[in-house]
């Protein structure tokens, strides 16, 4: 949802109270897309920087865990907290730096990411997660998804710790979260549902899949098979609970059978070793990376010699591969290979490649240029 332009009188009472407590804060934008509160974006007159003020609701007199968790963490990829105050018994607010690009979901919608930027953002996410998983902190985030990650100056910052929980120091387990079904790992379903550090690895793996171009639709009906859709239509459509329960059950089956992610949606130019690393991160519990550091070590290994691809408006472009740039220019369904020296300006058609479908042209280029 787009942030609304600010009219103070239209703001909810809690947001107005927060503004009254913070005369140094000049509110500029209001965003109510959060699940349990609002965000005010504005300028801090004393700190002289853009800040975000999150007003959120919690159970009466409950411990306000979110700012407390943030205050314990000191990592460049974890959101910092400047101040936290209580407004009412069931409502509090805290202040953090504002991210210039907003959340990762918007960032992915707005820009084509190069493979190196995608790789770097994924590593930053894992690096931030390692601070949470530090045994002295012992937290699992449980709700990692693009909407809960912020991007500022091409740096990724983990935010929204509303679902974070401490892991049991003896078992290493935390209660399962029921947020964001598409991102829930297989072990978070069923009677003995749980969450542990590798569950965060699973969610980071899905984010990696999306960073490298994998599609994950928010339209849950798209995950239903034809047969499931027929059964779904037979349910009383006015019964929201029954319909959402049915959809959740279908998606749960897909997750448990490892059929949620469509790996064919990742562009063919993403290197197979990298795809293998991402696939391992989202396997079932016990088969995936047990820790963040294992996942990072594999990402570090596949980074060596990773071709620098970027999707552009005219087609995928490979930059500085053996001092040459290649452009797979799209005309209808036909792709043509264009080539230039990395330092020169204009691409020219390379007639040694036969134009055709993207996969066919990419195969020719892979053989000719020695791509992984």
């Amino acid at each position: 949802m787009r942030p609304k332009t600010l009219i103070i009188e239209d703001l909810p009472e809690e947001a107005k109270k927060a503004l009254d407590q913070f005369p140094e804060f000049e509110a500029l934008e209001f965003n109510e897309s959060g699940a349990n509160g609002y965000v005010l974006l504005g300028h801090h007159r004393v700190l002289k920087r853009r800040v975000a003020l999150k007003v959120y609701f919690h159970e009466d007199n409950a411990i306000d865990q979110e700012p407390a968790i943030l205050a314990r963490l000191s990592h460049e990829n974890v959101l910092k907290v400047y101040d936290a105050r209580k407004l009412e018994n069931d409502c509090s607010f805290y202040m953090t730096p504002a991210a210039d690009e907003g959340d990762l979901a918007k960032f992915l919608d707005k820009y084509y990411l190069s493979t190196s930027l995608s790789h770097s953002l994924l590593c930053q996410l894992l690096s931030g997660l390692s601070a949470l998983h530090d045994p002295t902190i012992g937290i699992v985030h449980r709700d990692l998804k693009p909407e809960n990650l912020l991007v500022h100056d091409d740096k990724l910052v983990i935010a929204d710790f509303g679902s974070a929980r401490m892991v049991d120091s003896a078992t290493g387990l935390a209660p399962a979260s029921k947020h964001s079904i598409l991102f829930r790992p297989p072990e978070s379903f069923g009677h003995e549902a749980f969450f542990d550090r590798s569950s965060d690895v699973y969610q980071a793996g899905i984010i990696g899949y999306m960073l490298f171009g994998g599609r994950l639709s928010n339209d849950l009906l798209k995950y239903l098979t034809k047969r499931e859709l027929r059964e779904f239509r037979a349910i009383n459509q006015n019964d929201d609970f029954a319909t959402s329960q049915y959809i959740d059950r279908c998606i749960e089956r897909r997750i448990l059978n490892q059929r949620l992610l469509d790996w064919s949606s990742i562009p063919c130019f993403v290197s197979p070793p990298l795809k293998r690393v991402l696939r391992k991160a989202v396997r079932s519990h016990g088969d995936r990376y047990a820790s963040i550091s294992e996942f990072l070590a594999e990402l570090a290994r596949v980074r060596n010699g990773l071709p620098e691809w970027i999707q552009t408006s005219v087609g995928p472009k490979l930059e500085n591969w053996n001092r040459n740039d290649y452009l797979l220019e799209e005309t209808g369904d036909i792709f043509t290979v264009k080539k230039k020296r990395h330092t020169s300006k204009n691409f020219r058609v390379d007639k040694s490649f036969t134009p055709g479908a993207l996969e066919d042209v990419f195969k020719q280029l892979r053989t000719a240029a020695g791509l992984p």
Partner: protein
Amino acid sequence: MIVTGVFLKANQSRIITLSGSRTSHELLAEKFNKLALPKNPTQGDVEVFVQAFKAHCMSNGIDKVVINRRATNGQGAGGAGTFLLEGVLLATSQVPVEFVHPATIRATDRRGSGAKTKRPSTVDLGKAYDLAFEGLH
């Protein structure tokens, strides 16, 4: 005490993490045993290397890192790979880094290598284990 032994060889580091004491210890994070920098690393390569190593130290609560003293003379001395890795570890490690000379490991083995019960069979990982063992009390 949790100690990570890092055996630097060319542009590769072989890693073993031990928890406990010299008389009773166990291997931790067994799958995190190898981390390399490319021959001509970029800033991005070093960044990912550092992130992975820091993540390992943080998520396992490492108290100390022990690395092998680089050869400064003789055959194999002066290689850029170990020099780079050593510099990266020294500059970025958030836990104390100690150097152990191969002669110290040989001396420990002479006094009795019976305590080295969990030594991996592969040569380089065995050397990383020796380094981690030296860091234990």
